């Protein structure tokens, strides 16, 4: 048994890293050895060779999208991804050597930029895939998201029951807090992990400051004010039984906020792991179109 954890980067003893390094080195040596009578460009025999390699690489890299969807392949998907990453990185070098490091204000350089954008968005993807799964596991703390959501719902019920025993005003506040708990939302909300936990702590601080300035600052739907309102209530002097219940309620709500915060972070990690693909995939199709336009135009005006 291989005790070492195998990631997409060191799959099969980094087979694809070594393959890519060998390919890069071969291309570099050929480029250094090649001394055309004109400045190096895509039109020399080495230029055509490197261009063909790069073009085939792009098409092969695109096949990863198909491979990902098929479950019948004999090779492992991790192996494919490892090769996808390393060969995609090698493509930068091969493409630059193919062009002889020449750039200009034309279709060909636009195609190069498109390709680089795809590759660098892929780099971000690699970073996400290496970083966020660990963070996600740690954040979830061996629970699942649905379990956490169920617990939140349960806590809400318990909190309402407790609040009801204290005062209608408290009940109303708790009710509002439940309604205002936001989990998930639009793209930006998911990416920002806007949840109630941070807002609660910040809200308490802000509310305390605000209260000093403005005694009865009204309004807003800041859930942090839920706790603040209760602290207010506690301080206003009620009987012991109610105070006890209120403390319990605050415990419950704190627990709920911690959970909500975890869920929001869970959503954020998942969104971060997915968001780059919404650039990577469309840009890669644009790159294929660029490849077609590049090859056709070059040979159209041979």
């Amino acid at each position, binding site marked *: 048994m291989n005790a070492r954890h195998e990631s997409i980067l060191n799959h099969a003893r980094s087979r694809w890293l070594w393959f890519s390094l060998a390919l890069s080195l071969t291309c570099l040596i050929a480029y250094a050895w090649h001394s055309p*009578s004109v400045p190096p460009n895509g039109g020399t025999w080495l230029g055509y060779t490197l261009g063909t390699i790069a073009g085939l690489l792009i098409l092969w890299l695109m096949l990863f999208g198909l491979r990902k969807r098929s479950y019948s392949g004999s090779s492992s998907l991790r192996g494919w991804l490892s090769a996808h990453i390393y060969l995609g990185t090698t493509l930068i070098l091969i493409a630059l050597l193919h062009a002889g490091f020449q750039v200009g204000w034309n279709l060909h350089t636009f195609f190069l930029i498109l390709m680089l954008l795809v590759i660098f968005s892929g780099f971000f993807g690699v970073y996400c895939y290496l970083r966020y799964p660990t963070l996600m596991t740690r954040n979830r703390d061996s629970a699942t998201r649905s379990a956490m959501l169920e617990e939140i719902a349960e806590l809400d019920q318990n909190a309402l029951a407790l609040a009801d025993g204290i005062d*209608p005003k408290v009940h109303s506040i708790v009710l509002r807090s439940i309604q205002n708990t936001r989990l998930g939302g639009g793209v930006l909300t998911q990416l920002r992990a806007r949840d109630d936990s941070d807002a609660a702590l910040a809200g308490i601080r802000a509310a305390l400051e605000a209260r000093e300035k403005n005694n009865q600052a009204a309004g807003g739907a800041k859930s942090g004010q839920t706790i603040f309102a209760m602290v207010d209530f506690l301080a206003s002097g009620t009987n012991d039984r109610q105070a006890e219940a209120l403390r319990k309620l605050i415990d419950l709500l704190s627990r709920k906020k911690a959970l909500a915060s975890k869920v929001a972070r869970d959503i954020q990690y998942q969104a971060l792991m*997915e968001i780059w693909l919404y650039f990577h*995939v469309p840009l890669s199709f644009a790159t294929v179109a660029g490849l077609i336009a590049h090859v056709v135009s070059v040979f159209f005006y041979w």
Partner: protein
Amino acid sequence: MRWLIRRVLKQGKGAVSYEEDVHFGEVLSIGRAADQAIFLSDIRAALNHARVTAISPGNYKVESLILAGIRVNGALTYAANVGAGATVEIASTRITLLDPPRDFEAAVEISALDKTEQEAAKARRAKPTSLKQTWLGKRLPSWFAFVAVLLFGLLLPLASHFVPPLGRLLAHTGLPTTASWNPGPLDAAHRFFGDDCKQCHAKPFLTVRDTACTHCHTRMAAHADPAHFNLPQLGEARCASCHQDHLGLAGMVNTGQQLCSGCHADLKTRTAGASQLEAATDFGKAHPEFRLRLPAWDASGQFTPQLTRLTPQLKENSGLKFDHALHLKPGLNSPGGRRDLHCASCHQPDAGGLAMKPVAFESMCHDCHTLGFDTFAPDRQVPHAKVAEVVYMLDDYYAKRALEGGYTETSAPGFVQQRRRPGEASLSPQQTIEALSWARDKSRQVADSLFTGRACVTCHTVTRDAAAANTPGAGWKIAPVRVAGIWYAEAKFTHAKHSTMQCKDCHQADTSTSAGDLLIPGIANCRQCHAGESGGSKVASTCIACHRYHQAENLLLKQL
């Protein structure tokens, strides 16, 4: 005001029954408190949760009594005026406002949401928790990006190729045309038609044809005749084999020496003996000694230089007698005093800087080498380089002197020596004949001495027709002269480019005492500074630095 409150009771298996109740009052209160008109037992309901006021039959005002607001027709609100049919959802209860039936001013229906309805409502209200559930997508943007790049990168430029007016329109609006395909800046000379790709790229998917080049470059010479030299591949070589555009100001002339050395390595075998050129593959390492055009003249006096391989023993025949060492001595005695001569006193570059101007007697030699012939008239000189004119001029001069009189040389007759005053009687016919006879003899004698002793022979080789050997002043011949000229016609050497050098660095004139010394340097002299393509510390000089490719004299490129 009478309210009808109808409760919907579900009894399993889809059976439903109704329970009706009447409430009196302007306001219908809803909540978990015991005093509410509609009592909700759900913990999620506040004690006083909301109230409904009947404005008119079928019109209601719904107000929330809690901070969180209530959900009317699915939307959170604090207060709303609604008509009949509106629903208010509180916890697991749905309250529907109805059109009041007869005898009532207002009516509501209360039903409990069953589990599936509650789930559905919850799902409806749930916010997306993954990007897949948002508006973001991959398929549509992918198609869009693919089509957009293909359209702007390929299809529009293609259209501009096939429909020129469209191309002009696109260019005018800043949209991509075939110009966007330009891989690099054109050669400076080609830019004036560079917007029109078709000028060179006439047919799609075909390489640029030679006809596109010779369309403008009509007078461009071929390299050599493929038929004559048994080299069909010479005719197959494309212009673009050596000349590639779109490389900017780097220029289109390919200076690589392998372009030449490929064939010139073994030209004799390649051409089956049609070419006798020695192998030349690298100027520094493999290049034969130069062949120079040695001055020579054919029987009719026509200049026919002989292409001769340079050897250390080789002498030249310029037709002159000249001692370089003597002339370069400082402080030469001249009619104008002491003088120092330098190379440039006689050898001056032509206007193009390529070669030297021919040496001109009048401007370069004449100051010292005067062509005077008579001590009685030191200012008179015979013309240079015109043999016949010399004798005519002498004849005229002495005839005039004889007839004028006053020529005091002792060999002359007395009446020639005697000076005549104006008005004095002229010579008698007999005296005239004698005077002219003397003048003729004198002029021929002077001519002979000029040709053989005093003037011409100093620098020139003078010969005499055997037939005229006994006729004074006749039959003299000056050997033809070629001093400066093109020695290396197969290569282009430019003096101007070597102006940082001194003359003596290449031409050993200061030790040359004979005009026969060949002062033209050979390849070893050039190799002191120049080497082949990989020149090391020397000047890297490929074939094209000295030779031309398009050098055929009678064959144009477009004739191939």
